[in-house]
């Protein structure tokens, strides 16, 4: 019988710990497939964040480092600078990257570090139980803004791709979504381009993935995917924000 689909070699056999309906699993799968397809096996170091993806080092089947909260781009910088021929990537969530780690991501980007950062934006702090994230939408409820995010009190959500694309250092900045089959396929193309940019030594590359968190959003998985598609994309439009050819 012909095998038409198999799990990527770049994922271990450890079962994911993610909640039902969470899209981290899809993001992991896409990154792993791209790494396999570009022949990165035996030539890659990944950096895991603090957040829901903290155990990513158990899932990616390659050398991994676990960073402290927000510092994955700094850790990846250290790795890439001493191993310039390896593919180095960091995998971060929105609290990790866009709140506590904002300095690290901006500066890794502006230095043009030849690393790839995968940014999971699910507009919530997942691991700590649903607090407001820097990317939480106006009006969106969280445990630290129970009536919905009020800009008067909580400020406005931050658009990371737009912000980073103003810098000279990045070679590729794109935002995809993980809400249906078509968008997942597009997201994979973005991830592949990002890693190819790193291989071509073009500079910093970055893919934001709008993701679902049904558990902390208080939705079922189907509602959550619909929220990504219909609410999040209004504020966070998909597309390529910067590409150095």
């Amino acid at each position, binding site marked *: 019988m012909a095998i038409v689909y198999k799990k990527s070699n770049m994922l271990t056999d450890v079962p994911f710990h993610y909640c039902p309906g969470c899209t981290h699993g899809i993001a992991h799968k896409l990154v792993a497939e791209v790494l396999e397809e570009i022949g990165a096996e035996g030539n890659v170091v990944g950096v895991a964040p603090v957040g829901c993806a903290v155990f990513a080092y158990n899932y990616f089947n390659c050398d991994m*480092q676990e960073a402290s909260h927000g510092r994955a781009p700094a850790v990846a910088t250290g790795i890439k600078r001493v191993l310039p021929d390896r593919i180095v990537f960091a995998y971060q969530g929105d609290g990790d990257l866009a709140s506590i780690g904002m300095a690290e991501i901006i500066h890794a980007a502006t230095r043009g570090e030849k690393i790839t950062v995968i940014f999971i934006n699910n507009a919530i702090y997942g691991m700590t139980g649903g607090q407001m994230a820097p990317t939480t939408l106006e009006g969106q409820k969280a445990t630290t803004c129970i009536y919905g995010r009020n800009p008067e009190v909580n400020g406005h959500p931050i658009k990371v791709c737009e912000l980073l694309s103003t810098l000279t250092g990045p070679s590729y900045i794109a935002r995809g979504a993980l809400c249906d089959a078509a968008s997942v396929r597009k997201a994979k193309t973005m991830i592949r381009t990002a890693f190819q940019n790193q291989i071509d030594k073009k500079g910093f590359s970055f893919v934001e993935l709008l993701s679902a968190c049904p558990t902390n959003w208080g939705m079922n998985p189907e509602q959550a995917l619909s929220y990504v598609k219909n609410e999040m994309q209004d504020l966070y439009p998909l597309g390529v924000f910067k590409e150095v050819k």
Partner: protein
Amino acid sequence: MKELMKGNEAIAEAAVRGGCRAFFGYPITPQNEIPEYMSWRLFEVGGTYVQAESEVAAINMVYGAAGAGARAMTSSSSPGISLKQEGISYICGARLPCVIVNMVRGGPGLGGIQPAQSDYFQATKGGGHGDYHLLVYGPSSVQECVDIMYNAFDVSDKYRVPVMILGDGMLGQIMEPVELPEFKDLSKLPRKPWATYGDNKGKDRQIVNSLLIEPDVLEAHCHLLEDTYKEIAKNETAFENYLCDDAEVVITAYGTVARIAKSAVNILREQGKKVGLLRPITLYPFPNDEFARVAKQDCVKTFVCTELSLGQMIEDVKLATGMIKPVKFFGRTGGNVMSPEDIVEYVNKEVY
């Protein structure tokens, strides 16, 4: 012929010769000559340098580079070292070898920029969160900075414990004759089996990590660290005993204060007073056995602990000696430095 070198620059060159190939720093007085020197020097030897966006980022770059198997270091001064403490805790948790230089300035807060020793507690008791220690050296001359720095990566690699060199603004800025050692042959260093070189596949893959969520696993890990510290104490403890064999008064001091105290001992000896100096070279592990041995000498009547702080090392002196002899304290703080004559006056007034 010896070269005249500034402490900070001598440390930087000794680090390069000792195998440092990655430096991550952030400007802060009085240690700026170290990153300035590294910013051009490392590229001459095939190494790398990043001026990080913050001390926080710098120490995490050290984490990444050290985790990837490189000899990596950072340097800073007191407020910057406070910022690095989270990263240092992670580095200790992940058992990564590296070197951290602290050219201490007066605190707390932004404090001042003049020499101080008020980071002794922070350096020797852990500094960040969790059950851990660094291997802390307190060199007292530029040559000793060179000698310690030159071997620091070997020692750190051996135990997988970071080395901290605890200097002060004076040690960083002073110029003295030094003899620089030859370059270490890095090609002879063994591959680090735990490092993420990126070429490990499948079951051989390595994870650099300090997250151990099961209490039993974390406890075992802490015991492993504890065993390592015991091994370090056995093998690496270093001190200088200067004229303590017949001493009635033993002055204790480390770093630059120790050489000021040594001049004081010489003056007091000329006055016919039996005074010696006991100087820890490793601040952690503290030379407990030597302090206990000297305290038990019948001739010893009193210890005088001298520091550029309100009294931090004195706690270790008291613990090590069991306080079987009185331990007095003479210190300056806030960036002020005592002279040998100040120590002489204290000893003559308070002891004799």
